[in-house]
């Protein structure tokens, strides 16, 4: 069906098994990368939006009980999650614990949630970096393999005319093109998500002490 008249697909139909394997690996990389990009984009955007709205509410009200009740509406935000974990720990203390011990325990709970949130935010993102770094090399491997075969054929035919060399090389170069096509969106996505995660992490580090102070100095 896909004979050589149909450009790239014709070349694909003539490609060897190694090149095809490389292309299938790159295709799966590309699919997973795009899935991660789409998933993370929605997740981080929601987290940022809800964190911002929660912070506005927190500084507006400054009553931890009210803020906790309101935080139920911000289920996907990182800051509301951290606040909730600190509040739960604070309420679990009871009245017998002195203020220094209470501060330390709440701070520990907040810190633990911040760490968990950081992990949650950066899940799957390193795969993008891996694809961005390795996909061009995998494609290059396919190209080198194809060119090796091409030169082998040239040696067999004892002809170095362009007509003899060009089809094999163009067939092999598809692998490099596929590697770049998989790597470029992955690198762009990785840089974007790293920057977004950095913003959320800075917020978490800055406002965690504020939360602890709000619990302990509760009126």
């Amino acid at each position, binding site marked *: 069906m*896909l*004979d*050589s*008249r*149909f*450009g*790239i*697909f*014709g070349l694909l139909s*003539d490609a060897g098994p190694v090149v095809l394997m490389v292309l299938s690996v790159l*295709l799966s990389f*590309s*699919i*997973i*990368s*795009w*899935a*991660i990009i*789409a*998933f993370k984009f929605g997740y981080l955007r929601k987290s940022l939006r809800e964190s911002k709205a929660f912070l506005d509410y927190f500084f507006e009200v400054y009553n931890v009980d009210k803020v906790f009740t309101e935080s139920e509406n911000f289920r996907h935000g990182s800051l509301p999650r951290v606040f909730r974990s600190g509040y739960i720990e604070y309420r679990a203390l009871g009245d017998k614990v002195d203020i220094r011990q209470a501060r330390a325990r709440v701070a520990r709970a907040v810190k633990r949630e911040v760490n968990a949130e950081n992990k949650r935010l950066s899940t*799957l993102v390193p795969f993008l970096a891996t694809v961005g770094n390795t996909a061009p090399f995998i494609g290059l491997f396919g190209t080198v393999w194809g060119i090796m075969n091409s030169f082998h*054929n040239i040696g*067999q*035919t004892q*002809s170095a*005319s362009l*007509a*003899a060399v060009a*089809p*094999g090389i163009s067939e092999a170069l598809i692998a490099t093109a596929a590697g770049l096509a998989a790597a470029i969106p992955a690198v762009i996505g990785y840089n974007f998500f790293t920057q977004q995660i950095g913003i959320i992490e800075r917020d978490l580090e800055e406002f965690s002490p504020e939360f602890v102070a709000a619990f302990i100095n509760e009126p």
Partner: protein
Amino acid sequence: MKKGQKLVSVEKKFSLWLVAAAAMHAVVFFLALYFQLWDSSQHLKPKIVSVSLVSLPGSGSAHQYSEEQGSSAAATPVPPVPPRATTHPPVVKKTVQEPLPEKPQPVAPKPVAVELPKKSPVELPKPKVVDKPTDLNKVLERLKQNVAKKTATQPQQPSATSLNKALANLQQKVKSDGQQTGSGSGGVRSSSSGSRSSAGKGVGGGGAADPYKAEIASIIQQNWAFSRQLLKNSYGMSVYVRINIVADGTIRQIVFDKRAPSEYLNNSVKKALEKSSPLPVLPKEEGGRDIWIGFMFTPEGIE
């Protein structure tokens, strides 16, 4: 429990995105395929005038061509050029499907022996000029039957002897020109008989003993750089092509009646014809008119 449920929901969401990404890739793939098909259909408008497996003799097509295109060539005789066509830059004026670049093509003699044309040229009856592709198949079948009949009725020996004569003439001519002939590796089957575009006359000339056709077949064969090993599949790999030669030997038009599935083979044929232009000057018997000659290129015979 809650964390487990959250994890499951996150995994579900991610697998949904995974399916969406796979679907997106499939859509992009099919769009690219569709675009290429559409693009190829835009570029490959079949401008088929008539189809002949072997040649395009007769007055019908010749007359039409000479009226449409070749009248100027017939009216103004071109000064003769030296017979070794490959030493001159080609002046291909028109190609049906792809434009031929004009560039000097000095031909180095190749270390391959000239092979005999495998099919003996057969004289064909006057073909009809068919404009529709559906009619072309009928004409094709009819021509095949005619060729089969003629080859069955004609004894093999005379055509072989005449072919030998033609080759002997050719060799003498080549020797007299002082040029070396290499050993060919081609599978060019000069299966043409003379299709003389005689501006209405339509003399069905040519044949097995036509030294001119044998000579141009050998020139094209020498200029044909093709390797069968580069084809993964040789099934159905044949190119039917006919060329319009004006009086001075210039190939004016190249018509691909049937293209091979491999662009490599098609391009190699095209380049061989480009390289071979201008061919030797037409013999005087042609009367300064242009002629159509058909060839079939297959990968067979090349090892």
